[in-house]
């Protein structure tokens, strides 16, 4: 699992640390559940957690600092946003509290800290929930998009599709919360680890600087002899990555690999080379590597892929241009896109050698420029 190797953190104080660079906010019932789970998995002075809900009872029940959306609650937001380097909102769409609170917080960011990157993780309702709820979620997603640096829509339906049909329903919901918490922590955690190569907040900023965009996330964990191969396979099978990548074209991506302390230089270099080879040349890619003392005998890979807005702004186009290519870029990643890279072998067990999927053409993996013009 992607979350293996993460240590449990202690309970948080009831005050939001003013020194924390990153604020992780759970909005509404679903968002708060996820953030509470994330807080149990991860503790670091650079990261603070906050629960936002309309229910005052939450203050008594929750171990995190709580902000109740009573009258005038927005006035506390500027202080909470001060000194932060990033804001991560986790919200379950389809209800009213989460969406409303998310809009209010994003509004406060615009007014007081317009340069602050805001990443929204939005979980979408299940298909079996009533259609109104689903429609409301879709509307909220559209409404929130202009406020956020990027939105990661996380469709519970896709997540549940990965579970065996005999999974107990309660267990399935719990698993969904855990998974969403893992996603949140996986995005943030590398930035709190010992930096080996290129793991900086600036890269998240680079990925998220264009508003109205969407992101897809893939997380993979592997251990043992084929740790990297297994981690890559998990990333490629990540449900949220598959859906997004098959429906849109990406322009940039951030891949961060977390190694255990005892990793050798050769292992790190081999792994980074392999992960890099998974992406198309045209994609603007930032790669990072870090060492996490809590990861033992395994490798964790987090991939964030950015999809530009449908009608890119001049600023966005310029940004893409600076990163190498102005034309529309194809992402060559995830199973649907892997299919376009493995062709007739897409349905068969991949042939692997070390970290490489040999079903992908050699010229692609070796980044060989091919003259296909005639």
């Amino acid at each position, binding site marked *: 699992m992607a979350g293996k190797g993460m240590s449990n953190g202690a309970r948080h104080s009831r005050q939001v640390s003013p020194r924390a660079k990153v604020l992780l906010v759970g909005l509404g019932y679903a968002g708060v559940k996820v953030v509470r789970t994330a807080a149990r998995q991860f503790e670091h002075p650079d990261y603070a957690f906050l629960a936002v809900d309309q229910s005052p009872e939450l203050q008594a029940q929750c171990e995190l600092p709580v902000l109740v959306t009573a009258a005038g609650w927005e006035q506390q937001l500027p202080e909470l946003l001060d000194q932060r380097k990033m804001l991560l909102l986790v919200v379950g769409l389809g209800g009213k509290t989460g969406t409303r609170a998310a809009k209010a917080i994003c509004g406060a960011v615009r007014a007081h800290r317009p340069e602050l990157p805001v990443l929204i993780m939005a979980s979408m309702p299940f298909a079996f929930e009533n259609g109104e709820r689903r429609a409301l979620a879709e509307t909220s997603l559209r409404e929130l998009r202009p406020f956020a640096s990027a939105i990661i829509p996380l469709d519970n339906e896709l997540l549940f599709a990965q579970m065996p049909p005999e999974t107990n329903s309660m267990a399935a919901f719990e698993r969904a919360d855990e998974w969403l918490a893992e996603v949140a922590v996986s995005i943030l955690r590398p930035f709190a680890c010992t930096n080996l190569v290129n793991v900086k907040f600036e890269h998240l900023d680079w990925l998220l600087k264009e508003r109205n965009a969407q992101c897809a996330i893939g997380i993979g964990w592997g251990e043992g002899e084929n740790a990297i191969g297994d981690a890559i396979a998990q990333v490629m099978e990540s449900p949220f990555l598959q859906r997004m990548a098959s429906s849109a074209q990406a322009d940039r991506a951030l891949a961060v690999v977390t190694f255990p302390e005892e990793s050798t230089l050769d292992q790190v270099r081999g792994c980074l080379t392999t992960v890099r080879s998974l992406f198309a040349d045209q994609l603007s890619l930032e790669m990072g590597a870090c060492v996490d003392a809590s990861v033992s005998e395994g490798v964790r890979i987090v991939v964030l892929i950015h999809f530009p807005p449908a009608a890119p702004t001049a600023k966005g186009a310029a940004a893409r241009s600076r990163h190498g290519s102005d034309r529309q870029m194809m992402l060559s990643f995830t199973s649907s896109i892997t299919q376009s890279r493995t062709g007739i072998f897409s349905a068969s067990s991949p042939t692997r050698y070390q970290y490489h999927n040999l079903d992908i*053409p050699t010229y692609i993996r070796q980044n060989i420029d091919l003259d296909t013009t005639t």
Partner: protein
Amino acid sequence: MARKQPVNYFTSIELGTHTIKVLMARELPREQALELIGCGEADSLSVVKGEIANVTIVREQLRQAIRQAEAQSGVDVRDTYVALAISGGYVSQRAFSTEVAVAAPDQTITQGDINQAILNARKSDLPADSFAISTTTRLFRLGDGRETLTPLGMLSDSLSVTTLTYAASQMRLMSAVKCVGELLERDLNEICYTPLALVAACLRPADVTLAGQLILDLGAGVTSYAVLTAAGCYTAGQLTVGAEHAANDLSLAFGLPIMMARQMLCDFGRLDCSVAPGRVSSARLIELPKGPGMARSQVRASSVELVVRVRLQELFAIIRESLEKEKALCHVGGTVLLSGGLSSLPGVCELAQSVFGMAVAPARPHSFRGLEQTLARPGFVTPLGTLQNARRNYAIYRAQCSEEEPETPSLLRRLWRFAQAVINF
């Protein structure tokens, strides 16, 4: 079920990724050779990377190939000793080592010591879901740690041997065995791991007295390799990469339908293309046939060559690396032999030579007569080797039996095979 009659007819079956092949042969005892009497070949429509993807389709294609071979030979396949060549990613290699004390008072190693060490190694346990296809001898180690391929007559207080067992996942192996068995309505007599078939087809112990040999079979779905030394088969293995990968690469690179990419690979020589290193085809264009879904009408010859060259170069480099890791390459002093359909690709010998740093030549099967066209085709080396292997194993079995008219061994009667491990090429 196995039939009670002496055998001098043999059949080999290969369920290949490109074609399904059936060869029938008659033993020529005086010449210690086989005469090919029947050959059948049918397109393989549902074998991927050496494994059956659709049993019904494969069985039908096999039926066609068998009919052709029977029609040519005039012999019913069911009346022959039938061997099936096995390939695929589900076969793995396991090394076992055992040690015996040298029995002679003067501590001279005898054939008896060698046999005992090998037999002990063969008793090593395999996982419950694995089925041992073959065991070969890698090398011997004397009491003082010296390694040797030929310990006979040397002095030591003990002798250890490393053997390699080629084991297949039972369920996946039985899919192939059952597919053939049900069509023939009888049990198979033996199965043969493809790399070992190559050795049987092209290498004789006399060929490796002085220096080990490496043989590579470039198939459509699987590439097999084996290193034969004076002690036996030092190592053998497979990589589920083959001509289909090269065709797939072409298809993806130029947006060609896969059938057209396959055809382009078959026509590589006719298109004046080559994978030889250093080849420069400059801006020459290859015309493509017009067809639905065709995004282009021409491709650059240099790009076509590059796509296939880097694929094969990588394949050779992986095999070289694997052999180096197993310390097998240092035992190869002779020529690298190439077989398989892809070995006829222009420039492939030069490319292999540049990667392995050794002379490379096409593999030539030995001890066969008849059907010269079939013998000359590099894609038939595996079924030819399977025939050769079957003949040798049956001869060993016959020598072990005291009955005048031995029952043909069925696949399940594996005990007789201990002799194979002892003699081991």
